[in-house]
């Protein structure tokens, strides 16, 4: 049946049905290469649940910048296995119920092939069952709740960046040996803050220090004074586990109450991520933190990969309305999580959700080498718990800038697996 046939008026319903039948039969019975070629026209549908509104909107926006940057680079280079990547983003509104609803839609209506995303730990925890029930590989990209890869680990869930126990193992020797023996921990009172508190308390004690007290502050508390007024006593350092507006509130109000003058301040890198430095002003001066990525180029971080990542991310952040913002760990981990998924897809020849088992096998034990795709360095995605270990960076804030104090290779941040897959 050609265009000429059409001109001659020889197209009948019977001929069309016959031709269609032959075509369909050929497609079903044809060998793999042809089917593979047919599938090539269909992009990989990658879902991403991110907090684009609500308390975590800032982090969600920067996270999306990193993810989009990875997807654009992949598509520009010809896609994965010749197929483009289509990103389908859902706003979880920083709420677990909304997050779960949006993820259910991504999985059941949008038919995503895999997922890269998740920012707030309570939302990640709420969504894990959805991915498991539907057998969708879930590359979380920001959530730091420890249990995601320990007591609540799951064969479909991967964390291709660090978590609190490994950060604590890398940072605790510095805290105890160089800053002080006695610590007080203040934390965001929800899953991430609680599990991070436990990890640091263990490591500080394990390194010969002590934790004299802890204080949980609920997420989104605007006036923290009643909480901060209770922080008193004889200790050397105040360890902070906060992110976003909560870290801004703590640093501002804690400084106003003189806590910065009395104690040394250290904490999770989320307290001083680049995107919120303008709101912290000079009150973050002297803070010592640990992070998987900080925008600093002191050796050994003066690599062409980190420079290229930084330059492109800055441009993209500017276009996203984040003027003068340097990339933070949320940009970085989303960028690298998407690239880790790409590596797994290539290795397993993953074609769609039916191949999830093959993708899981490829991701287990995945080694990522320092490159343009993984600018923060080599890392390993461990088979036993789907947890990655990465180089940790210890920094100090001076004159509004990050100053590198130390880097800890990923091998020294490794902790034993504590996961049993169901």
């Amino acid at each position: 049946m050609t265009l000429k046939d059409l001109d001659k008026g020889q197209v009948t319903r019977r001929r069309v049905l016959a031709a269609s039948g032959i075509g369909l039969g050929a497609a079903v019975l044809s060998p793999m290469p042809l089917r593979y070629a047919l599938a090539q026209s269909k992009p990989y549908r990658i879902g991403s649940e991110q907090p684009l509104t609500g308390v975590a909107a800032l982090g969600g926006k920067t996270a999306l910048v990193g993810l989009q940057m990875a997807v654009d680079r992949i598509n520009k280079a010809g896609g994965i296995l010749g197929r483009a990547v289509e990103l389908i983003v859902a706003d979880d509104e920083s709420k677990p119920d909304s997050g779960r609803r949006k993820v259910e839609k991504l999985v059941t209506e949008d038919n995503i092939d895999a997922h890269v995303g998740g920012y707030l730990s309570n939302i990640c925890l709420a969504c894990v069952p959805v991915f498991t029930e539907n057998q969708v590989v879930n590359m979380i990209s920001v959530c730091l709740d420890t249990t995601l890869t320990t007591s609540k680990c799951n064969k479909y869930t991967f964390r291709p960046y660090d978590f609190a126990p490994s950060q604590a193992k890398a940072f605790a020797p510095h805290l105890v040996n160089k800053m002080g023996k006695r610590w007080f921990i203040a934390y965001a009172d929800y899953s991430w803050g609680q599990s991070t508190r436990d990890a640091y308390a263990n490591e500080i004690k394990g390194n010969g220090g002590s934790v004299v007290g802890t204080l949980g502050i609920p997420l989104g508390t605007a006036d923290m004074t009643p909480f901060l007024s209770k922080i008193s006593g004889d200790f050397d350092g105040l360890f902070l586990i906060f992110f976003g507006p909560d870290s801004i509130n703590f640093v501002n109000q804690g400084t106003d109450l003189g806590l910065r003058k009395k104690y040394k301040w250290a904490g999770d890198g989320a307290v001083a991520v680049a995107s919120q430095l303008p709101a912290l002003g000079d009150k973050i001066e002297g803070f010592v933190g640990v992070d998987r990525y900080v925008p600093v180029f002191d050796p050994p971080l003066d690599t062409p990969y980190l420079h290229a990542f930084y330059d492109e991310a800055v441009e993209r952040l500017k276009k996203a309305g984040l003027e003068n913002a340097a990339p933070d760990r949320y940009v970085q981990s989303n960028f690298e999580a998407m690239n880790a998924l790409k590596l797994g897809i290539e290795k397993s020849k993953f074609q769609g959700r039916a191949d999830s088992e093959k993708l899981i096998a490829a991701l287990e034990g995945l080694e990522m080498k320092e490159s343009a795709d993984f600018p923060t360095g080599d890392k390993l995605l461990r088979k036993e718990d789907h947890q990655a270990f990465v180089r940790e960076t210890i920094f100090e804030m001076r004159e509004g800038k990050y100053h590198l104090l130390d880097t800890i290779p990923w091998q020294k941040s490794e902790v034993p697996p504590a996961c049993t897959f169901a």
Partner: protein
Amino acid sequence: MQWLHAVPWDLLLIQTINGIVTGMILALVASGLTLIFGIMDVVNFAHGEFLMLGAYIAVLTIVATHNFWLALIIASLGTGLIGALVYVTTLRPLLGRDPLTTILATFGVSLVLQNYALWQFGPVARKIPEPFSGSITLFHLDYSLYRLMIAGLSAAIIGGFWLFLKFGTWGIWIRATTQDRIMAQAMGIPVPWVLAGVFAIGSAMAGASGVLFGPLVGVDHAMGFDWILRAFIVVVVGGMGSLGGSVLAAIFISLLEAYSSLWVSPAQAGIISFVVLILTLLFRPTGLFVATPK
């Protein structure tokens, strides 16, 4: 007398000051809310967003002028103007209808304003610098003078507003409209203008509280949320529409929470305000600080 020794007097004094300072900020937010409800019967769910807009206007003004006090005035006037515009375009056509329609309308305005701020200013929190630094030593704490000033200034704004209501021509019109809108109109009071003015004043008070509280927190699109929930509790406990009731309820609830946090976690102390709210609704629905209707 053994128990007297068990009382942590230093913490008690600190928490008293904390309670009064927080109570005065809350009173400033709540008095705008109660004013709008008392006169217009509108439960304004967008009130927190006016607080946020006030803070953003202050950020822009400070960038241009480096003057906190000018920013406070401009932000109050600016949010007042925006409040009047919102009233005229959105709420005026709905007055007199089922209260649910105005609740839904203000909820919609709240979402629009919040997302507008996110789009216009981005998600990065901005900073309002304190107009002055300095602190006094209060036992183990250095208590910021600015926090004390917020309490004083909030009291001054509320006091000034009370005088305006008591003695100003517009204040008398507002009180007359509160008592009987139809009679006020019959007496020649320009009720539509009074209503627009009330919404503007309520919004301006929210804007002013956003500026005053701004230096203690980052200014972002969601900053009004935490305050608005507590302000609603204060308005209900104080008696909806009662300015004095709101001020007393704000201080009462803040002090209760502050004292409770001496013995329990401050997070658990926050539950106290909800308990007070439920008890008020059950046993004195007109509010704790207004006379019982005869």
